[in-house]
C-alpha cells in the first residue's frame, strides 16, 4: 500500500489528440476496497482516462502510481499483469466458444503428453467452477457463451477480471443493459469484491446507482477533473451542476431561420427490438432545427436510421407533407427527399480509397448521366461548386478521402447529401471528433440550410451544441421521448434531468 493510502493514483495525466485536448492535467486517486465513481458528460474524458490506465492510449504527460510505485503501462497485457482489468462498455467476448475458454483465453492450463502441450480441459473446468462458486455465480463453465444473457456474460467478464487476481477493476457502464434484478446481483458481486480489498472504478451516467454503490465520486468536464468528493456529500443536483456547470465557450452562428409549416409528422414509431425506441412522436417544421438530446444508449441513432429505412418498424406512422413516408430502404428515403449523415463516419460514411469527387457524388450519380454514360464535366462542375460552397480544404477533387481531416471529410459527406437536394436532413452527431474551427463551419452550414427552408433533425450528445443550434430539443431516454424543450429557454440541467428520467 502506498504511503498516502491510495492503491492507484493517476497523477496529472494529459492527453492530446489532433485539435482536442482530451485530458488536461487529470488526477484520479483510488483507495483499495472502495468503489470510485467516475462521472461526466459524453466526451468529458472518462473513457480516454481509462484507456490510458489500460494501456490503450499513452498519456502525453503524467504518471500512474500503483501501490506507491510508478508503473509504465504500454499495453493491456501489462495492465493485466499489474492487476488492472477493465470490463468494457461493449463486451468483446467470443460468443461461439465456451464460457471457460473465454475466461482463460491466452493462458489456457496445459497438460503435456510427451513433448507436446495440450489444453487441459478438465483443469480449466475445475478452475472455472471454483472461481464461479467463490463469486456466487451459477453458470456451467462448458456452456457456449453466446447462449447466455447479457447480464450473465457480464458476470463471466467480472469473473475473468477476478481470475487475473485484479486489484483494480474498471467497469464502464456495466448496468446499461441490465434489468433491476440483474443490477442487484451485480451490486452483490461488487460489494463482495470490495470486501477483498479490490478497488472498483465505476463509470456510469445513472446518478441513483452511483449514489447507492460508490464511496467516492470524481466528476470530469471538458477533459479536466472538476471535483472529487465522498458520495455521502453529494446529491443528484450537485452532480449535475458539476457536470454541466461551464460557460458556453463554444460559439455558434446567429440563426435567422423561421420555422414554417409542419413537413414531417412521426407518430407512435416503435421498433421491434425490445430495448430500442418505442412510441416516438414528433413534428418537424419547414426551416426548423430539431435537436435530439439524450445519453448514449437512448436509441436516438436507431430512431433516425429507422426514419431513413435502415431499421425495421413495428408500429407507428411517418407522414411527409401528409403522404405516407414510412420507408424500407435508404434508396426510397432518398427519393422522398431525405438525407442521413450517419454517426459512424468511418463505418458508414466515407469511401476512404475513393477521391473527394467520387465521395461527394456517389449518392446522386443519375443526375449526371447522358445516354447511359456519366457526363464527367457536369459532375466535376457540381463537385467543385459544392466543395467551394462548403469550404472543404482539399488539395484537389482527386485527393483520396482518407487523406482529409475529419472535419473536411464531414463536409464532403454533407456535400454528398446536399447534392441530392433533400428537404429533410437527418444529422447524427454531425460534429463528433471534429476540431473547434471546423465545428463552427459546420454549424454555419446547418443554419444556412435551415434558413433556406430545409428541415433538420440533429442528434447531438454535446449539450452546448444542442442549446446553441436547436429551435426545439427533443430529449430521449431509454428509447422513449422524455420531453420537448424550447431551444432558447432550455438549460443543460433540464436536458440532463429529462435524459435520465426513466432510469
Amino acid at each position, binding site marked *: 500500500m502506498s504511503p498516502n493510502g491510495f492503491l492507484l493514483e493517476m497523477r496529472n495525466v494529459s492527453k492530446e489528440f489532433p485539435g482536442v485536448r482530451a485530458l488536461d492535467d487529470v488526477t484520479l486517486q483510488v483507495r483499495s476496497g472502495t468503489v470510485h465513481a467516475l462521472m461526466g458528460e459524453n466526451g468529458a474524458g472518462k473513457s480516454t482516462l481509462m484507456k490510458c490506465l489500460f494501456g490503450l492510449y499513452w498519456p502525453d504527460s503524467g504518471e500512474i502510481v500503483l501501490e506507491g510505485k510508478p508503473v509504465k503501462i504500454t499495453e493491456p497485457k501489462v495492465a493485466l499483469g499489474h492487476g488492472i482489468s477493465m470490463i468494457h462498455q461493449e463486451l468483446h467476448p467470443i460468443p461461439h466458444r465456451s464460457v471457460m475458454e473465454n475466461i482463460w483465453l491466452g493462458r489456457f492450463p496445459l497438460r503435456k503428453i510427451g513433448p507436446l502441450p495440450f489444453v487441459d480441459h478438465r483443469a480449466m473446468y475445475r478452475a472455472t467452477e471454483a472461481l464461479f462458486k467463490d463469486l456466487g455465480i451459477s453458470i456451467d463453465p462448458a456452456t457456449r457463451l453466446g447462449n447466455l444473457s447479457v447480464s450473465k456474460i457480464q458476470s463471466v467478464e467480472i469473473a475473468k477480471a477476478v481470475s487475473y487476481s485484479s486489484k483494480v477493476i474498471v467497469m464502464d457502464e456495466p448496468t446499461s443493459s441490465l434489468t433491476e434484478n440483474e443490477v442487484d446481483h451485480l451490486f452483490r458481486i461488487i460489494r463482495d469484491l470490495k470486501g477483498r480489498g479490490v478497488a472498483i472504478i465505476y463509470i456510469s451516467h445513472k446518478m441513483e446507482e452511483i449514489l447507492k454503490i460508490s464511496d467516492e465520486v470524481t466528476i470530469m468536464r471538458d477533459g479536466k477533473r472538476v471535483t472529487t468528493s465522498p458520495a455521502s456529500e453529494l446529491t443528484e443536483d450537485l452532480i449535475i451542476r458539476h457536470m454541466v456547470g461551464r460557460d458556453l465557450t463554444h460559439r455558434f452562428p446567429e440563426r435567422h431561420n423561421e420555422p414554417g409549416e409542419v413537413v414531417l409528422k412521426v407518430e407512435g414509431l416503435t421498433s421491434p427490438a425490445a430495448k430500442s425506441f418505442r412510441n416516438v412522436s414528433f413534428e418537424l417544421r419547414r426551416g426548423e432545427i430539431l435537436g435530439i438530446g439524450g445519453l448514449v444508449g437512448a436509441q436516438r441513432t436507431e430512431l433516425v436510421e429507422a426514419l*431513413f429505412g435502415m431499421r425495421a418498424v413495428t408500429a407507428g406512422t411517418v407522414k411527409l407533407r401528409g403522404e405516407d413516408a414510412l420507408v424500407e430502404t435508404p434508396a426510397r428515403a432518398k427519393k422522398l427527399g431525405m438525407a442521413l449523415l450517419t454517426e459512424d463516419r468511418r463505418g458508414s460514411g466515407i*469511401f*476512404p480509397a475513393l477521391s473527394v469527387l467520387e465521395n461527394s457524388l456517389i*449518392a446522386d450519380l443519375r443526375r449526371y448521366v447522358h445516354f447511359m454514360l456519366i457526363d464527367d464535366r457536369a459532375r466535376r462542375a457540381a463537385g467543385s461548386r459544392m466543395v467551394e460552397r462548403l469550404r472543404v480544404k482539399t488539395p484537389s477533387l482527386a485527393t483520396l478521402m482518407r487523406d482529409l481531416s475529419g472535419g473536411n471529410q464531414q463536409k464532403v459527406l454533407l456535400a454528398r447529401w446536399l447534392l441530392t437536394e433533400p428537404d429533410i436532413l437527418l444529422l447524427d452527431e454531425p460534429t463528433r471528433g471534429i476540431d473547434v474551427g471546423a465545428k463552427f463551419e459546420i454549424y454555419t452550414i446547418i443554419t444556412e440550410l435551415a434558413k433556406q427552408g430545409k428541415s433538420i433533425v440533429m442528434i447531438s450528445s454535446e449539450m452546448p451544441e444542442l442549446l446553441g443550434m436547436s429551435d426545439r430539443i427533443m430529449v430521449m431516454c431509454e428509447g422513449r421521448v422524455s420531453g420537448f424543450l424550447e431551444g432558447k429557454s432550455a438549460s443543460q440541467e433540464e436536458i440532463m434531468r429529462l435524459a435520465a428520467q426513466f432510469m
Partner: protein
Amino acid sequence: MAVTEKQLKEGKPEGAPLSTGPGTGKRVLRVLSDNAILAALIAIVLLIAAYDMWKGEGTFLSLSTLRNVLIHNSTRVIVAMGAAFAILTAGADLSAGRMVGIAAVLSASMLQAPDYLRLFYPNLPQLPLFLPILAAIAACAAFGFINGWVIAQFGVAPFIATLGSYAAIYGINSKYFNMEPNSSQPIGGLRADFTGLGTGAIGSGLFSLPYIVLIAAAVAVFMWVLMNKTPFGKNVYAIGGNVNAAKVSGINVYWTIIIMYSIAGSLYGLAGVLEAGRTGGATNNYGNMYELDAIASCVVGGVSVTGGIGTIPGIVVGVLIFGVINYGLTFINVDPYWQQIIKGVIIVAAVSFDVRKYVAKK
C-alpha cells in the same frame, strides 16, 4: 511488385523522368510506385530479352512474340475482367474456369461442320453462327445471375457461393458432354466460320490484327467505360470500398451485386466460346483453373483483395505479365517447374508490395 534497383533502371524508359532537380529521388520513387506494374512488365520483358541475346538466338524482341503473347492471352484478359468484379467487392469468383468450360462445350457442340464423322447433334441443321454463341453466353450469364442472387439474397460469402457453382457447373457440363452419342469424346471438326473467329485476322501476315485480340480489346474498353463512366461502375467501387456507406447512400447493393456477377458470367461465356474457336475443339475440362490465373492477374495488376481498389488497365497489364512470363520463360527454355515457382513468388511479392503501399499511408 518487388522492384529491384536493376529493374528500376530498366523500367526507366517508360515513365520515370530522371530530372536532376531537388527531390528527384522522391519523384522517381513516386512515379515508379504509381506505375510499378507497368515498370515490372517492362523489366521482365527486358530481362528475358537480355538473357535471350546472351544465351539464345536474340529473336525474343520481335513482332511475332508480341502477336503470340496477345493471341494467347486474349481470353485470359476477358476472364480476368469478369473475375475482377468479385475481387473489387472483396470477394472471389471461383466459378470462372468452369463457366469457360461449359461455354466452350455448348458452343462447340452446336457448331460442328456437317461432314464431320462424330457429331454431337447428328441431325442439327446449320445454325447461324451467332445463335449457339449467344446461347452459350446466355447460359453463363444465367449461372452468374444465380451466383449473384445467392450472394445478395442469402449473404453467402462469394468465395463459398462460387465454390458451389464451380462444382455444380462442372457436373452439369460433364453430364452434357457425356450425352449419347458423344459419350465424353472431345468435340472436334468445328465449322470454319467458328474457328475463323478464334484464329482469323483482319489483313494477313505479321501486321494483321487477329479478331480474338480485337474482341479482347473491345471487352477491355467496354469494361473501362462501364467501370469509370457509368453509375453502375461507380457503385461497384463504392460497394467494395465501404458497403455500409454504399447502402446509406441509397445504392441498390442487392441488384448491383446480381448484375455484376451476371456480367462476369457473360464474360466467362464469351471467353469459353473464343477458346473453343481458337483451339478448334472443346472438352469438359476446358477452362480448368482459369479462375486462379485470373485472380492472380488481377492481384498482380493492383486490384486490392480488400475491395474497392483496382483499374482496368492494371488488370490488362497483370494478365500480360503472366503471359510474358509463360511465353518468355518457355522461349528461353526455362524448366516448366521453375516457371511455376517464379510465378508463385511474383504473386506473393506483388501483393506484399501493394499492401505495404497502403500501410505506409496510414
